[in-house]
Structure formats: structure tokens, C-alpha cells
């Protein structure tokens, strides 16, 4: 039992604020919420919308169609009415859409003027309209509004409350035909992937972050800046992404736990620095938040198009670990895990997310944000004849940092065990092999794919990263409809434990299951990787690359109609 509410309008009309207030109010009322924004690359105008899917059970995906659509602009009705279900309640602002058929025209901006004194508050009227249609105690909304406008003064709080209340009063009888989920039971904490990564990084002991703003990665660095005082960290906006990654190289060399965050274009500029971190064996951590490319592409949309670039990017050969969380909760855990991996193996780690995971919020069990720094594994007793790149069996050498007793030397050229530049070709081989040996450890330490669904399923969805939720919903839907289908979620996409993964794919199925690889790109990148690794042989890719996230429904339908 779920219902999807969509509020639409121009950038600058406060759609996002209204949506956030509503989503949190609903979560406070104990409902399961899955709220995602869809926005354009502009500051004012255009068409943005905010979806809030509400349920009495945990949600993992958005929905393409809405059950309630409210738009503050004519454009919103025009574009989105087609995606409102036949039973849906469609609400337009009288001021903009007088004669739209199938629409309920409410005087939203008029009410904003009357109740709040300005039509800028139409967003809170809209929030009230929506909440008024729902069968939950409106006090939850009032409380959220109070919090949201607290910093703007009592006067503003009152006006916005008045707007919401007046909005709620406009809705009599409008939603009588709709069925609503019952409230109660859900975690009231709503969390986005962005916040989760930020919290993970702060709790893990990140002390320095340098980045250049780039959608959809900017949020991570903004989150860190917001909490910089509290956690005693430095956040610096770099002049470009090259500076950002090289600053992080410098900072990790000096011994700080550090990160940078960017999207595809910025990651491209970091490729040389990534290679440097491989050569110098620095625990560099890069958050790569994807959006559709090539080039500038669609800056505010979502994609999973940079996997192969992350795996093969940077010149030369060196080990790296790549994680791809499926939910905010997992994003929190994997941020910590990625940092730990980077430090354990003195190798770069990349966390791949995308606009979808970065921005959507859903009920999440409280995260342990307490300061629990990962073990940086810095040696405090380097000893007399310390050598930074000592040859070891597992490839990991004792790591000291400058300022202590030993001199620490790191070189981007091929180097000897001490860290000095060398052109000795046997030393080259020794050091190269040493570096590459670390990959074995990374593999052993890697996260096995997570199965959801029956162990003996003969149909299997393979997913990586943010499409976890939609796939999971599809599995549930399909199994309810009589399929025997499971999914395997890859939260770590590189390097891969080949044999274990083969076993995990087979599960208890009598024969090799039929595979569908769900990916947000047009070339089935992960499937290609699995094929190259000898893990799978054939598969049906299910691909999407128009910039929108998958939904559970569309995956289920695609598999069913296959």
C-alpha cells in the first residue's frame, strides 16, 4: 500500500523546501517515505519536481506515476499530467492553469498572498494542500514548518504556518477516492546518500577535504563544510579538480585522513592524480558522483556511466578499490569501509554514487556518527633504517609520515625501497610487483555481493550501486506475481572475487540462472567487466540512460514482458 505525491514548479518556487518539509513530517508521523527530487540545471524557472512516495512498508524506489500531482505552474501540469494515474488527484494553481481539464484548480498563490502576504509562500500552501489530503495528524507538518523557518524569526514561522493551514483547508473531499497507507513504525530519520557519505567521512576521521564544486558531488563537500567546526576539519575549495586531488595526495602523505568529491568531468581531470596515488601508495579517497555524460552532459540528472573509467582510469597499472553503495545506509558504511581499505592497502579507493543516490532521502536507522576514526595504520616506530617502500609479501610496506624520526620519501617516478627515483629496471619490477600484490589483499578484504530473494532462483538480477532499491522492489513485485527471482547487489565493483561471485550467482539454483544486468548506462559496463573476469558468459542487459533513475515498477515490467 503506497501512494506517490508529486509537487512541481519552477526552480525558485521553493518546491524542494515544501517537499523536504512534507517528507520529514510524514516520516515523523511514522510513515515510510521515499523522496526524490528531479531538477534542471538552472536556478530559476524551468520545471522541477519533488516526489514523495509514502508507504506502510519500507520503500526502496520511486515511482514514475503520481497519485497526487500538485503543480504551481502550467508547465508542470502539461508535462506531468500524463504521468498521473487515472485515479490520481491533479491540483493546479488557479492563477496559472485555469482551464486545464482533469485538474482541480485551487487558489494556491492567492491563498499565499492572503495568508502569508506574498505569493512566494505558495510552496507552504502547497505543502498544506497535500498534507490536508492525507489522513495524518497535521501537527507533524506544523512542527516541521516551525523548525524549517525557525532561523528566519517568529513572524515568518507564523506566516508559513498560516499558509500551510489555509492550504489544508482547500482540500475538502478531494482525495476521498484514494487509499492511504497507515502510519506508524517507520524510523523518523530521513537520510540522503550525500549526508550519509558526509557522516561516514566525519565519523571515520577525515580531517581534510578539498574539492571543486560539481553537481551532484557538491553536497558532500558542503556537508563537510557545515560540520567542519564540530569535527575540527579543514575544507578547502580548490582552484580546480587537479589541485583538489593533488592536495589530497599531499595531505595523506603528511598523515591526514582526507578526501575529495567530484563528478565525471572532474574525475577525468583527477585521472593523473589517481595514478599518482597508486604510484606513491597514498590512501586517497575519491567520491565519484555520476551524472550523464559525455562532457557536461546533463548536469542534474543521474547515470551509472563512469564505471569502466573508474576501473581503468589513470595511466599505468596499480590496484584500487571501488565501492558502489545501494542505499544511504550503505553509503555511510562504505565510506568508512573505503577509507579503511585505502589505509590498509595504501591504495586509492573510489566510492561511486550518482545524482539519484546522492539526493533521494528515505527512512534510515540512526547512523552512528560518533567519532570513531578508522585505523590509519601509520607506524609510530619506523626505526633507524626506515624504508617507505620496503618489499613485503603482501605488498604493504610500513607507512610513516613526515615530522617523526624517520625521513619519509615519496616519488612519482619509479623508485627504490627508500623512495628515491630510480631507473634500475629490476627495482622497477620489484616495486611494480609489490604494488600489484596488494590487489590480492584488497580482493580478500572485498565485500561479497549481497543476495536478495530466494537462494534457488533461476532468474537473477545483477545490479551495482544505486539501482539496488529499484531492483529490490522489482524482485518483491515479481515474486508476488509468481516468479522465482532473486538479485545480487554489488556494493563493491572492483576488484572482484571471481570464484565466490560465480558461486553466489548460482546460489542453490539447479543450473546457471538466467541473468539480467540492470545498469544506468548504454553499454552494459558492469556486465562487460563480469564477462572479462570470466564470471558470466551471457546476459540480458536492462539499460537506462536518459538521466532518470530506474523504478522498481519499470524493472519488474521489463523482466516480465521479456
Amino acid at each position, binding site marked *: 500500500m503506497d501512494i506517490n505525491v508529486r509537487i512541481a514548479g519552477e526552480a525558485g518556487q521553493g518546491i524542494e523546501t515544501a517537499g523536504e518539509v512534507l517528507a520529514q513530517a510524514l516520516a515523523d508521523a511514522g510513515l515510510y517515505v521515499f523522496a526524490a527530487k528531479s531538477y534542471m540545471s538552472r536556478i530559476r524557472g524551468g520545471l522541477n519536481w519533488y516526489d514523495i512516495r509514502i508507504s506502510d512498508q519500507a520503500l526502496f524506489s520511486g515511482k514514475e506515476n503520481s497519485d497526487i500531482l500538485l503543480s504551481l505552474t502550467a508547465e508542470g501540469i502539461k508535462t506531468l499530467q500524463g504521468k498521473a494515474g487515472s485515479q490520481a488527484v491533479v491540483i493546479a494553481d488557479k492563477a496559472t492553469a485555469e482551464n486545464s481539464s482533469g485538474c482541480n484548480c485551487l487558489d494556491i498563490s492567492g491563498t499565499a498572498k492572503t495568508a502569508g502576504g506574498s505569493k512566494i509562500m505558495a510552496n507552504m500552501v502547497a505543502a498544506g494542500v497535500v498534507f490536508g489530503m492525507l489522513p495524518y495528524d497535521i501537527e507533524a507538518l506544523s512542527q516541521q514548518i516551525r523548525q524549517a523557518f525557525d532561523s528566519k524569526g517568529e513572524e515568518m514561522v507564523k506566516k508559513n504556518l498560516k499558509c500551510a493551514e489555509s492550504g489544508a483547508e482547500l482540500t475538502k473531499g478531494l482525495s476521498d477516492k484514494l487509499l492511504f497507507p497507515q502510519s506508524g513504525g517507520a524510523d523518523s530519520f530521513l537520510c540522503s546518500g550525500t549526508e550519509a557519505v558526509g557522516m561516514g567521512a566525519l565519523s571515520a576521521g577525515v580531517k581534510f577535504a578539498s574539492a571543486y564544486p560539481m553537481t551532484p558531488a557538491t553536497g558532500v563537500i558542503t556537508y563537510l563544510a557545515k560540520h567542519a567546526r564540530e569535527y*575540527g576539519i579543514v575544507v*578547502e575549495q580548490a582552484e580546480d579538480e587537479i589541485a583538489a586531488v593533488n592536495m589530497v595526495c599531499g595531505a595523506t*602523505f603528511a598523515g591526514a585522513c582526507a578526501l575529495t568529491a567530484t563528478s565525471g568531468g572532474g574525475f577525468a581531470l583527477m585521472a593523473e592524480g589517481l595514478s599518482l596515488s597508486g604510484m606513491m601508495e597514498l590512501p586517497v579517497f575519491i567520491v565519484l558522483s555520476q551524472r550523464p555524460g559525455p562532457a557536461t552532459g546533463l548536469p542534474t540528472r543521474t547515470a551509472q556511466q563512469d564505471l569502466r573509467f573508474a576501473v581503468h582510469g589513470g595511466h599505468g597499472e596499480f590496484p584500487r578499490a571501488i565501492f558502489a553503495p545501494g542505499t544511504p545506509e550503505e553509503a555511510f558504511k562504505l565510506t568508512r569501509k573505503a577509507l579503511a581499505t585505502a589505509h590498509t592497502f595504501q591504495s586509492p579507493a573510489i566510492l561511486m554514487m550518482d545524482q539519484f543516490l546522492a539526493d533521494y532521502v528515505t527512512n534510515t536507522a540512526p547512523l552512528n556518527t560518533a567519532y570513531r576514526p578508522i585505523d590509519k595504520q*601509520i607506524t*609510530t616506530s619506523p626505526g633507524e633504517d626506515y624504508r617507505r617502500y620496503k618489499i613485503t609479501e603482501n605488498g604493504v610496506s610500513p607507512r610513516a*609520515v*613526515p615530522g617523526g*624520526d624517520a625521513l619519509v*620519501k*615519496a616519488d612519482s617516478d619509479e623508485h627504490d625501497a627508500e623512495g628515491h627515483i630510480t631507473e634500475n629496471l629490476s627495482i622497477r619490477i620489484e616495486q611494480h610487483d609489490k604494488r600489484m600484490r596488494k590487489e590480492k589483499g584488497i580482493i580478500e578484504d572485498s565485500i561479497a555481493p549481497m543476495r536478495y530473494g530466494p537462494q534457488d532462483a533461476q532468474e537473477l538480477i545483477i545490479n551495482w550501486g544505486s539501482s539496488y532499491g529499484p531492483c529490490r522492489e522489482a524482485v518483491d513485485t515479481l515474486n508476488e506475481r509468481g516468479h522465482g527471482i532473486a538479485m545480487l547487489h554489488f556494493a563493491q565493483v572492483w576488484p572482484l572475487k571471481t570464484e565466490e561471485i560465480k558461486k553466489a550467482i548460482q546460489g542453490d539454483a539447479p543450473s546457471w540462472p538466467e541473468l539480467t544486468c540492470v545498469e544506468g548506462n548504454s553499454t552494459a559496463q558492469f556486465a562487460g567487466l563480469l564477462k572479462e573476469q570470466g564470471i558470466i558468459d551471457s546476459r540480458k542487459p536492462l539499460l537506462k540512460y536518459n538521466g532518470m533513475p530506474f523504478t522498481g515498477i519499470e524493472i519488474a515490467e521489463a523482466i516480465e514482458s521479456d
Partner: protein
Amino acid sequence: MSQQETAWCPGCGNFSILNTFEEAVKKAGIDRRNLVLVSGIGQAAKFPHYTEANLFNGLHGRALPAATGIKIANHTLNVVITSGDGDMYGEGGNHLLHAMRRNIGVKAFVHNNQVYGLTKGQASPTSEWGFHTKLQPEGVINAPMNPLAMGIIHDISLVARAYVGDREHLREMMVEFLSHEGGFALLDILQPCVSFNKLNTYQWYSERVQPIGSDHDPCDRQAALELAGQWEDTIPTGIIYRSEREPFESLLPALKEAPDGLCEKS
């Protein structure tokens, strides 16, 4: 001094820089365990390997961001860049500009031989008009850049020039820079490249280089700009500009609360 054999050409100005550096480190009483030498790639950039200090010999052009990261991570370290003109002014130009805006507490010794040495003699951003190379067979047509003037207009802590042919003066400068505790300090060191720069030779420099008179007030920005613009007949050496602007690190709340830096070893 280090065990590492140098990869420089006999007669190269880099040797004077190295020897003078060793003297200056001693004279300034620098604890080498606390000293981090950062460089990019080039002949000059090999410098850190030839002395004893912590070293970060990073990517071509990226000495400054690496040094910035190191200084922020542990502001108790003495972070000194020793790198080339191509490295710092060419590939690394954007970092130079923004390090100046930051006034980050890093000292940069730029071995300015007005040429790309390691890649065998292409023009550098400071090459003279008309300088002929294999890649510029018609001669350089881009104006040489003026890093010192850039430092002045962006009000960095210290702007100076030295010449390897005047070792006493060079040592004096180095001692001052190594002991300097303020913001970004840029020392442009004129360094003949005997292999690829047949124009700006020891003789050429010697005929022009002239220490700045004691009447110059380095806090006078206009006067400093005028000095920084001089090149034709006389090339002034010495402290050209000095500012009291606070270094970047001192403006970061997190560092105030972590006097030992951000690198707790766990």
C-alpha cells in the same frame, strides 16, 4: 648530503643551488626531520633526492597543491618547494595563481633556467622573446610571464629573486626563506642551463644581475612592481616585496584547535 648521485649536467646552475641550500639549512638551524621538500617533475624537481629531508616528488606542475595539502595536514612542518620554471609557471600556473590568493605558508624556490631542461630544451614561460628551440624554430613569440609581479599584485608574504652566480646572496635569501614563518614566499632563482639555454648564460646573467639597493622599501607595492618589471639592462635580486598578510593556515579554525596538525597517528 644524500647518497643519491645527481643527474645534472656538469656546470649546471642546479649544483650551486644544492650546495647553497645545504649551507643555508645549516645556517638557519633547520631540523631536517621537520623539513618537507616538494617538487614536480623536471631537472630542478629532482633536487629533493639530493639532500636529506622528507620529500614529495609529485606530478609535473603539481608541487603547489601537494605542498598545500601537506601544510594544511600538518602546519608544523616546514614545507619548501624546489622545482623548475616550467613546472611552477607553465603546467602549474593555475596553482601558482591560487596559492598566491591563499597566501599559503609554503616557500617556493623556483629554479628558473628559462627553458625546459628535462625534456631537452623547449621554451618555458619565462623564455625570452625570440629564443630559438627545436620546438620554437622561429623563436618564442609569447611574452615571458612575470611571476614576481603576480606575487606582488596578489599581496603574498615574500617575493624575491636570487642568482646562482652570487652564492652569498643566494644563501642569505635561502636562510631568510627557510626561517620565514608567514605566508607564501616565492624565490625565483636565476639558474643557467648549460645544455639548452645558450642565451641566458652565466655571463649574460652576471652582466645584468644587481642586488637591490638598501633604499628599496619592500613594503612599497608600487616600487616593488617597478622592480619586478625590470629585466632588460639590470635584473634586480633580493627581497622585492614583503607583506604582513596573514598566512592561510593561521585563518583556519581547525588548525588553531589542533596545534600539532591534523595527523594524529592512530
